[in-house]
Each structure stands twice: as structure tokens, then as C-alpha cells.
């Protein structure tokens, strides 16, 4: 392997890894860093299962190269809870049965958090469009939208 050394911050921790130049950040995160909460559904940026934030911006990690992460900050689903305290979105996804198989759940949570971080009071339509890059095949999205609505309400109350 003609590896390139990449230095990043992942979920607040300094992490170095080496990867080939043509490897996706998704593969680097899963196979080299061990963050398998980041899922691959398509590898072409169409399903959102691999959603992460890169310097605070929501991206599909399958469309980013591992080497592009050098010097940047990454957050994944593994960094969403505060210790053993779940993020309101995580708690509400469980309480509202917003997951069935759960493979899309990490991506939805990362994308929903990115929405609520910039819009604390989204309309149903804003939620639906903000999550339109994430595919779920089990739920019909009904309980996902309700879980995001409940989370937004709860987070506004706590502010």
C-alpha cells in the first residue's frame, strides 16, 4: 500500500491514519479507524448512510477521500452522545420507534443534528427536505420526522 499519513481530529480526539490516495474517507473511518457506525449503503452519495460532518459541514464520507481529511475535524455518530448521556435526537429516535433495521439511523441522526444546529425550529417541510439526502426503506419516514420534531421542541425548551 502506497499510504499517505493523515492527521485528523475525530470526535474530539487526535487521530492519525495512513491510507492509499484513492481510498474514500468512509473506508478509512471504517477499516482503519474502526468507526463502523459510519455505514455504506451505496458508495455514490445517494443514500446518506455514511453522513458525517467535516469541519462542521454535513458530507457523505463516501464522496470524500481519506487524504482530504488531513488537518480537519470530523464528527461521526460515535461522537454524538455526551458520554453515556444520549443526544435528544438519539433518545427520541428510540422513544418514537424511528428505526426498524437501524442501518440508516447513524446517517439520519448526523443529518438531523446538522439541521437542528442551524435551525432550532424547523417546519415539517424543512425537516423533510433537510433529510431528503438520507434513504430509509423501513419506516416511510413518518416516525423519523416525528422524532426530529420532538427533539427540536425538547432542545428549544432546554435553551
Amino acid at each position, binding site marked *: *500500500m502506497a499510504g499517505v499519513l493523515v492527521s485528523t481530529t475525530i470526535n474530539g480526539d487526535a487521530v492519525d491514519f495512513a491510507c*492509499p490516495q*484513492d481510498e474514500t474517507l468512509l*473506508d478509512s473511518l*471504517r*477499516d482503519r479507524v474502526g*468507526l*463502523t*457506525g*459510519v*455505514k*455504506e*449503503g*451505496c*458508495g*455514490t452519495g*445517494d*443514500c446518506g*448512510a455514511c453522513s458525517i460532518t467535516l469541519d462542521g459541514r454535513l458530507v457523505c464520507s463516501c464522496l470524500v477521500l481519506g487524504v482530504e481529511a488531513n488537518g480537519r475535524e470530523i464528527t*461521526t*455518530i*460515535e461522537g*454524538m*452522545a455526551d458520554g453515556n448521556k*444520549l443526544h435528544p435526537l*438519539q*433518545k427520541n*429516535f*428510540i*422513544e418514537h*420507534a424511528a*428505526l*426498524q*433495521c*437501524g*442501518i*440508516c*439511523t*447513524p446517517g439520519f*441522526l448526523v443529518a438531523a443534528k446538522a439541521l437542528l444546529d442551524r435551525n432550532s425550529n424547523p417546519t415539517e*417541510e424543512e*425537516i*423533510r*427536505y433537510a*433529510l*431528503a*439526502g*438520507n*434513504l*430509509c*426503506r*423501513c*419506516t*416511510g*419516514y*413518518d*416516525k*423519523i*420526522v*416525528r422524532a426530529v420534531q420532538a427533539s427540536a421542541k425538547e432542545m428549544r425548551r432546554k435553551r
Partner: protein
Amino acid sequence: MGHDTSYTDQEFKVVGTRVNRPDGIDKVTGRARYGADAYAPGQLVGLFLRSPHAHARIKKIDTSRAEKLKGVKAVVTSADLPDLTDGNRGLLDILENCMARDRALYDGHAVAAVAAIDRQTAKRALKLIKVTYQVLPHVTDVDEAMKPDAPIVQEYVATDGLPSNVSQVNQFGHGDVDKGFAEADVIVEKSYKTEQTHQGYIEPHACLASVSPDGSGELWVTTQGHFGFRINCAQLLGMDMAKLKVTASEIGGGFGGKTHVWVEPVALALSRKANRPVKVVMDRDEVFKATGPTCSTSVDIKIGAKKDGTITAASAVLRYQNGAFPAIWGMLGAMTSFACYDLKNVKSVGYDVLCNRPKVAAYRAPSAPMAAFGVESTMDLVAEKIGMNPVDFRIKNAAKEGTLASYGPTYGPIGIGPTLEAVKNHPHMRARLGKNQGRGMACGFWFNFGGQTCTDLNIGLDGSVTLTVGTVDVGGSRASLCLIAAEELGIPYEQVKANVADTASLGHNDMTEGSRGTFSSGMATIFAARDAIEVMRSRAADMWEIPLDDVIWEDGQAKAVGKKHGNLPTLSLKEIAAKSPNTGGPIAGHNEVVADNAGVSFASHICDVEVDPETGATKVIRYTVVQDAGKAIHPDYVEGQFQGGAAQGIGWALNEEYIYGDDGRLQNAGFLDYRIPVCSDLPFIDTKILEIPNPTHPYGVRGVGETSIVPPLAAIGNAVSNAVGVRMDHIPMSPPRILKALEEQNS
């Protein structure tokens, strides 16, 4: 096994509550481990070389250059997977689908596979394999495939002694349809087509295979049924079933598509040859091209009725495209077609037809949605012709207890009538419609399946309960099974933990298919818990030194009854568990069952759409599902099944289809061009759970997973037809098809 499975109208304490699922935290934190999330020391990456041709003779495969590439540890072709099937043609079909033998039968059919130290090396190795093909004529359309001069897909399939693509023809029904049609005041005959769709689970197929030099092996895999995978893999590779341990990972969706082996036997063959663990993860385009989508169909429906709305006869001819290997999909279509109705004269003929497309697998109530599209569209046409409200027309003809079903059995208590009444009285039916909007409704049926199940229940020293099941949890069944165990034992839900055991840890379980997971494992859980209660009663009797008959189990504790012992303090499950080492050892319950009589399932759906006459684009603006659950163990996940099936049906009705070119190659093998519904495409999906108990389950449970996908094609078809004023007869009703229908009407 002598257990009485009869329904008893009991009061529930925890069953029916909306508890948090036990695997919830793992799934919202990224901890849950799916098919691609396993790693083994020294593992290799396995990749497949696939046919670029729809149909071709494989004249030669030269793997020598790939084998010489540094880092390549194994290359396998069909030569490494000898035919051990001993004349079992069905098994040989499975082998041939996993790896092409003398012919590639569809675009994407596997022809070779490599295992290498990393992905980059494996990809280079695939490019070094040289396959010499002789391209053969192909056929991908079901009607074309039935023509006398069509290219023959499987040489061993024959009709009346002549090579044919029709693998079987099945007929169901009763009465005399000719006589019935002669009695009709109104007859409607119409033909319909539906295109091929994929289950579209978000997790691609993935496994980690490891075969040891001693011939034993382990397989970690995303599957709906690891026991079935063990049977197939062991048979195809010549292994003892007991020496192959298959562990089901968490599963990222299946909907029927993960009931068959695809890459797994080949992954094991690669591992055996390389003597290293091999991980195979399919790409999305491989999932589309080379796993098991559902059938495309061509269906003719004829229904005759009196002016008062009584159906006098109904008939169907259904042609189901099975892909390259014979299956039973046309038969199931024929069986389900008229199952909602009480008909004196009915006949359904189902053809199973081979094409140069991937082997078809089950997709949620397999075959029923396409038949229902034809039947329920025609029902609306008949109702319109006799001037009757379509809901009233269906109510008048609905099957009921005692009805001889069109596919043979006589129904017990069923839910079609009640779902229709609920639809009739639903506020949705009275809501006003706007411009370019239309409303439709339709009914659906699914058999449900019971099958073989085996369950263990072990009580720990601290009184916590381990429930060990063998049915894969695809959508929250562990929560439901913990509720059932807690209900029986009389303890809090949180005191029970359900686990899905590997094949080395439990007896055979059939797959999670046929809406059977919660139904069958739930039944086995009830009996396993009752088995454990018997043990605890006996321990209590021994501890009290009183006769067993004087001990009852109530509210999670043993109670002594009768004049002599009635004042003894109760013994809780925890107290009995704590003393178990000195009272006879571990406390466990066990059950194995063939859970027959799964209880048929019916649903009625209402849908409102708005069609843009400029673009032909359709938006679903309101959707309501009414379905009989028998008994909803965990209502959230029952609603989730209703909503998920409806959403898949909406995608199928409006957008999703396999598009083949004239070259027989799939043109849209990805989520960009095969577009499943996204969040902004859908409204909230309202649900109404009816509970008409299944008389042959102690709690009255019926399977709930599949029926919800049956009505949508027709409900949306009726809604779109009402919105645009043209009868839509081809699914999906994509914008180009709707525009074409509008143009034809205007010209």
C-alpha cells in the same frame, strides 16, 4: 408438541405497551454490528467478476494472470464449486446462480471471484481475468419470453416436451366462471403491466467467511435466516451442517431479499482456497444487478357483476417474470388475486416465466401487489359501470368467516370486512379534494406463514431472563418477544433480554419471512416461558414441601393455595432463581414448534394524490392504512410495518422500475437512477390497527409485516386515474407514462 395454541381472551399487563426496544441504544450510537462490520485477523477482500452480457456461453475463463498478481490469495470459478447436488435441480439452480457454470444467464451474473490482501489488489486482479463469451440471444420481457420463438433461458425447462420459458402453470378457483359471466349484467376485462422493482434495503449483502483446514467453518452474515443459509452453504460446499457455524449480524433491511444465498457460498469457497478469512461486501450496483428483485408482470383481469353489485364471476391470467431460475411467483399471484372476496365462480391461472434477468426473490407479500393492482383497478371499473360506490361494492362482496377462499381454504374470522367498514367511516374518505387531485382505495391480502421455530429461555441467578431466539430481528421483534416473555412470567419488560442465537446455539429456525418473526417466535416464547414456570412451581413446591398442585404462578411469583398453605409468603421469581443452585440447578424453559395457522391478513388503504398535468409528476398528499394485526404486541412497530410497506408501495407505484436496454443490460443500477421515496416525497402515513384475534395463537397474533405493500399499487392507481380521468394500467405511473396517457386521451 401438544401445546394448545388456541386464543384465550386474556387481559394483558405489558403486551400492547410502547416500550423502548432493547437494541435501541446500540443502533443510535453506532455500536450495532451489521454484515460489513465484522473483522478477522488476516482477512482478505473478496470481489466478484460479473457477466456484462444478458445471455452468453462461457467458452473459457483464463485466471492465470490474476493468480500471479502479488497479493492475490485465491481465484475461484465454477470449477471450484463442483456439483454436489446429487440430482437436486433446485439446489443446482442455487449453485448456478451464485456462480455461472457454462452460461451467463443475466447481466451481472457472477463468473469468477478473487480474494486479495486489499481492495485495490482485488480490483486489479478482476481486470486480469479473461473470459471468452459467445453472446446468445436474450429475452427480458415476460410476454416476449412466452412467445414460441423466444430465446430459451433454461434448457431443462419444457412445456409439453418442448423447450420453453414457462416453468409452471397453476390454476386456482371454484365454480363455473363461464356460467357466472353469462349471469352478469356488467363485465369489465382489462390488461395490466407492472415493472420489476427491488426491495432496496439500505445495507448491501455482506459476509465474513472463514474455513479452517479441518473443514469446519464460520460465517458472519447479514441474512433473514442463518439456519437456512447454513443448510445451503453446507450442501453446496460439501460440509457437515454442524461444522458450519453461521452467525446472523444485525440486518440492515431484507424485505425478502436476504432469504437466499448469493455471495456467501463463494466467500466460503474463497476462504477455503486461500486458507484465510474472506470478507465480501456487495457494491450497490451488484445488489441491483445480481440479487433478487421482485417480478415484472403482465396480468389480465375479468370481473362480471349484477347491477345490484353482486359479483357473478371473476377470472385472472397472470404472467410473472421469475428471472433466470424457476420459482413459484406466478402461482402465488394466482392464489392471492381474489382472496379478498366471497366469489361463487372464480378462476386464476398463474404462469411462471423465465427471462434473462436476475433470479427473483421474495419482496414483502411476494406476488400479491401486482395481482391486487389488476384486480383492485378492475373492481373500481366495475363499480363505476354499475354506478356503485367502490367501497360499498367491495363491502358487498367481501370475504367473511366461512367463505371458501379462491385459493382453497375456508376462512375463519378475518379482517377484510372490518377494514373496509373502517375505511368507509374514516374522516379521510370525506376530506375535500382540490384541483388535479384524486382519491383511491384498495384492498390487500397475505397468507402469513408460521413454520419451524425453536426458543430457549434461561433464568439467571439474579432473576434476569435471557430469551434466546433463532429468528433474525429485522424490525424490532426482540422488543415484542421480551414483552411476551415478561407477560407470561409476570415480570417487568426490562428484566428480559432477547438475543438472536447463532446456528451452533439453538435448533433450526426458519427464516424471518412470511410475517412470521413475532408470530412464531412469540408462540415459542409463550411456551418456553410456561415451561420455565413449571420448573419454578416445582422448585417452590419443594422449598415449601407441599404438593405441586397446591402451587400456582401469578404476578411473577409462586403462591401456595388451599386451606393448608394459603398463608405461606409468596416466592418471587428472583427468590426462586437465587436459590436455584441448591434446589435442582439452572432454571430454563424450552420450546420447539411448527407454528401452523399463522392467521391470514387483510388491509384496506386510502390514498389522495395530486398530479401535475404539465409534468406528469404525482405527489401523494394523504395516505391511510387500515390493517388487521390480530393483536398488536408492540403497536409502534406494528404501525412501523404498516407505514414502511405503504412507502415501498408508493415508490413502486410511482417511480421504481428496472430499466433494461435492448442489449439486455440493466441501465439504472443505482439509487440515483432507481429512485426510492425520500423524506420529502411522502406525507405522514396514518395508520389504524384493527385487532381481530387469530383463533390459533394464544394472544390472537397475526403476522403484520407484509400485507401493507399489497394495496398501494392499486390504491394509488385508482387515485391517479381519478385525478387525471384516464385509467392507468402500467406500474410505475412515472411522469412519462402519465403524460403519455393524457396525450392519448386528448388525441
